[in-house]
């Protein structure tokens, strides 16, 4: 892989999901197909980071099940089982088209990334046009702040601040998290930001929100700011993925998907040498 160069701000892409994708929606591929469509590559190199879960086997297996037979080059990187990786982590991250971060403990996620200096590598990857994707802890980590349950009860936590504002996730699935976030925003301890239901993804170009998409009817998002000590809440209606021609949403149209599948078989896409886990 040749050296990637920095791209202009509006070509830096992050998709933050409140929940959903292969770990939470094993029978609903809408968000994950949308993810693959975010890269221009025919067969994007997609790297899964299960760090926040402690590299749980179940997450890795789900990743393999979802992406193993799609047109892409899936790999995962376990920071607890690095034995066979003989290359610098930063190099591996920079040669990806997409980096997909799983859910779990946000506190552990950031601490372990820092210990391995992977946080800096991910920032550099974003600056060079690698699409960053994540759900739950893996979504909040890109913002200035989030709400974590890493120690049990929900509490505010700082993120990497590639994106302005704060994010809270599972707004519908884990109702105890939202009030802590709202209280933090009202008190000025947390910057204003977004609350996402499970199945909702916010697509950022540069630091600006471009689109909101969803894999589930009825799932929504809200933007919340504190103005003069009062909360101003604005509902965001996401586009429901899959209910109109998929190509228009950036996902893969069926016939194209079929064509790509055939090409993939013809080219025998598979093992590249990197010495890490691969579906």
């Amino acid at each position: 892989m040749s050296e990637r160069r920095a791209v202009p701000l509006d070509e830096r892409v992050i998709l933050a999901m409140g929940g959903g994708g292969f770990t939470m929606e094993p029978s609903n591929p809408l968000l994950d197909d949308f993810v693959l469509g975010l890269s221009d590559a025919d067969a994007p190199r997609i790297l899964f980071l299960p760090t926040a879960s402690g590299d749980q086997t179940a997450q890795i297996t789900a990743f393999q099940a979802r992406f193993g037979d799609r047109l892409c080059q899936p790999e995962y990187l376990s920071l607890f089982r690095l034995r066979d990786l003989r290359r610098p982590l930063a190099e591996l991250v920079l040669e990806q088209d997409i980096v997909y971060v799983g859910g779990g403990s946000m506190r552990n996620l950031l601490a372990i990334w820092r210990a391995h200096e992977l946080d800096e590598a991910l920032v550099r990857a974003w600056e060079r046009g690698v699409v960053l994707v994540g759900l739950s802890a893996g979504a909040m980590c890109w913002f200035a702040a989030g709400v974590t349950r890493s120690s049990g009860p929900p509490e505010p936590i700082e993120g990497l601040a590639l994106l302005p504002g704060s994010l809270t996730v599972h707004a519908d699935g884990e109702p105890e998290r939202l009030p802590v976030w709202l209280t933090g925003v009202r008190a000025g301890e947390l910057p204003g930001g977004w609350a996402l239901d499970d199945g909702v993804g916010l697509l950022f170009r540069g630091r600006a929100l471009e689109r909101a998409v969803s894999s589930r009817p009825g799932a929504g998002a809200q933007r919340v700011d504190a103005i003069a000590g009062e909360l101003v809440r604005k509902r965001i209606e996401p586009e429901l993925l899959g209910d109109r021609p998929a190509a228009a949403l950036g996902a893969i149209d069926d016939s194209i998907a079929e064509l790509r599948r055939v090409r993939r078989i013809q080219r025998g896409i598979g093992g590249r040498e990197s010495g890490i886990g691969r579906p």
Partner: protein
Amino acid sequence: MHARPPQIVALGGGGFSMEREGSLLDDFVLSLTGCARPRVCFLPTASGDADHYVVRFYRRFSPGCDASHVSLFRRDQGVGGVEEDVAAHLLGQDLIYVGGGNVVSMLGAWQAHGLDEVLRKAWRKGVVLCGPSAGSLCWFEEALSAFHGAPRGVRGLGLLPYSNCVHYDAEPGRRAEYARFVGDGMVGGFAAEDGVALHFTRRRLVGIVSSRRGARAYHVRATADGVAETPLPARYLGEEDGSVDAREDAAPARASTPRRRRRRAAALPLAV
């Protein structure tokens, strides 16, 4: 709580996670607690709190101990083992057993949860600390970690003012790498082969024991002419040495036969 001096048992590899008959080293560590039924808490952080590792811990320690574990990854799901105040729980133990895995990931997660300070306090208070691999390296000032790619130096908690190297016999090149690091300025220290345990009281090495006949530890330090490696014999804990009475219920495990000695379970990612 018994009045005990600060103690650490650093395993070069071995114990319940690596040896099918891993009772010898584990029994030795348990004997240091001086309790009939010790409170033993497992920290599987370095493995990412791998479920199978936790299960094996309970299988080994539940019968004779009040066993518990602390997970730093599953606390939001209510399956993190200890649910109350983790610091208070750890400080109330007789033995804290730290599992193997990746020492860099483990130290990062500990720091984020404040466990580095808690473990320091526990040590001073007389809670026996032990572990293999990453669970050994973490107690030292510096350590040689070869878990990922080229070996690197890692700063540990610094309870012991030495460096440490584990699996000294198991990985080719480990010995030369350690010598190189010590020659380049890493503080001198101790290397242990698989099945060897270094026993420290306060900051002093007071004993070396082993679950394998002939296994050794080494003292490695920089000298005027380079790096000196001094072999340190270990006291074999098995049947031929009657002087170590680990615990009464350890008797069946101590009847180890040559056939069993080197058999190991290879299921775990325990390199450092």
